């Protein structure tokens, strides 16, 4: 099985090295195409005019914030149950990425809310649950750096990631369960997207760009984490020999 084969960090790093140049190139291309199309050529919305262009950053960032947390939760579950040696590395590497996307979604959302809704921020269910998601990311990162020993830190952080995972469906369905100022979903909904194709296509390409960025930087960060752990093990070994 693929996952068991990749349990060997050296094999994983060799695969990552082979994939990374291609992924990085694809990320740059997708960003160039998506942002130029979205910010320069997509038509303005009939109600919101050019303000709608914020969507090309806001929506993919919000999706990736939720994807990042789901990824972290699944990786944490795998780490706790099967002790796959890369699982907690992957979860740890995903956290700052997801937190960054979450922050981008919150800031661009605020910048979008002011001209359209007439307010920077309201405490409705969608905005509040998204802020909670950001705090969960920050808490997860803080927990990792609060515990020195990687094995114990991984365990504690994995439990936090799993507990916080209940917030992901709350973020997604908050707009359906309660009355909110934020409008309901436009793309991922039962009866198909409510966005015209001329706006939906550049949005899809930007979403692809964000996703590629996530995968690329995730692999890079996982590599860095594995090398860091190797250095830690070597230093501890030298210290033990000298003592």
């Amino acid at each position, binding site marked *: 099985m693929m996952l068991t084969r990749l349990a060997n960090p050296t094999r994983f790093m060799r695969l990552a090295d082979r994939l990374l140049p291609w992924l990085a190139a694809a990320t740059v291309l997708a960003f160039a195409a998506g942002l130029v199309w979205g910010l320069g050529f997509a038509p303005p*919305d009939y109600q919101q005019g050019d303000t*709608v262009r914020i969507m090309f950053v806001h929506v993919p960032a919000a999706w990736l914030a939720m994807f990042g947390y789901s990824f972290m939760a699944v990786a944490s579950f795998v780490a706790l149950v099967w002790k796959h040696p890369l699982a907690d590395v992957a979860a740890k590497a995903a956290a700052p990425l997801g937190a960054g996307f979450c922050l981008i979604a919150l800031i661009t959302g605020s910048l979008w809310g002011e001209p359209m809704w007439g307010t920077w921020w*309201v405490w409705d*269910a969608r905005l509040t649950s998204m802020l909670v998601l950001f705090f969960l990311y920050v808490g997860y990162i803080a927990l990792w750096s609060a515990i020195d020993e990687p094995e114990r830190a991984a365990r504690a952080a994995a439990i936090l990631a*799993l507990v916080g995972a209940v917030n992901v469906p709350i973020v997604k369905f908050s707009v359906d369960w*309660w*009355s909110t100022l934020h*409008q309901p979903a436009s793309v991922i909904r039962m009866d198909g*997207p409510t966005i015209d194709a001329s706006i939906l296509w550049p949005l899809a390409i930007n979403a692809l760009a964000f996703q590629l960025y996530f995968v690329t930087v995730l692999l890079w960060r996982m590599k860095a984490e594995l090398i860091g752990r190797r250095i830690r093990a070597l230093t501890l070994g030298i210290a033990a020999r000298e003592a």
Partner: protein
Amino acid sequence: MTPRKRRRLMIGIAGLACLGAAAGLVLSSLGDQLVFFLSPTEIVEKAPPPTQRIRIGGLVEQGSVVRSDDGTTVAFNITDLATSVHVTYRGILPALFREGQGVVAEGHRQPDGTVKAAEVLAKHDETYMPKEVVESLKASGRWQEGDPLPSAPHPGTEAAVTR
């Protein structure tokens, strides 16, 4: 799968199930507390006292917007198509405010049943279309601006309309 792994898997699944159940119970008992606004029907039913700050959400009723001569005060009805509530507001309206638009007004319900708003926010729907598509949809009579649920064109189908 080794017995230890199976045990950890069982504990993991049981833990997640408990967590999900707990979250579900909390959310369902919070229920009403988590809504951002009440509909006009709910406002009329609950008749909150004038001391309580409330938010009312719905559509600005067609033909109901009246601006004062000095332009600072505006009166309109918020409707959920079943009940309408009269709202007065003094201040700057968001750019998206117009008849048929979704809005949320925050303020106090007066003894006469109207709402005196301290803040009016615009609520836009989840439909995004370029102007030309909207115009051709209107021309073909498939959609009216201010419809509560615009029959959104699905990607691929609107090309036929634009032509």
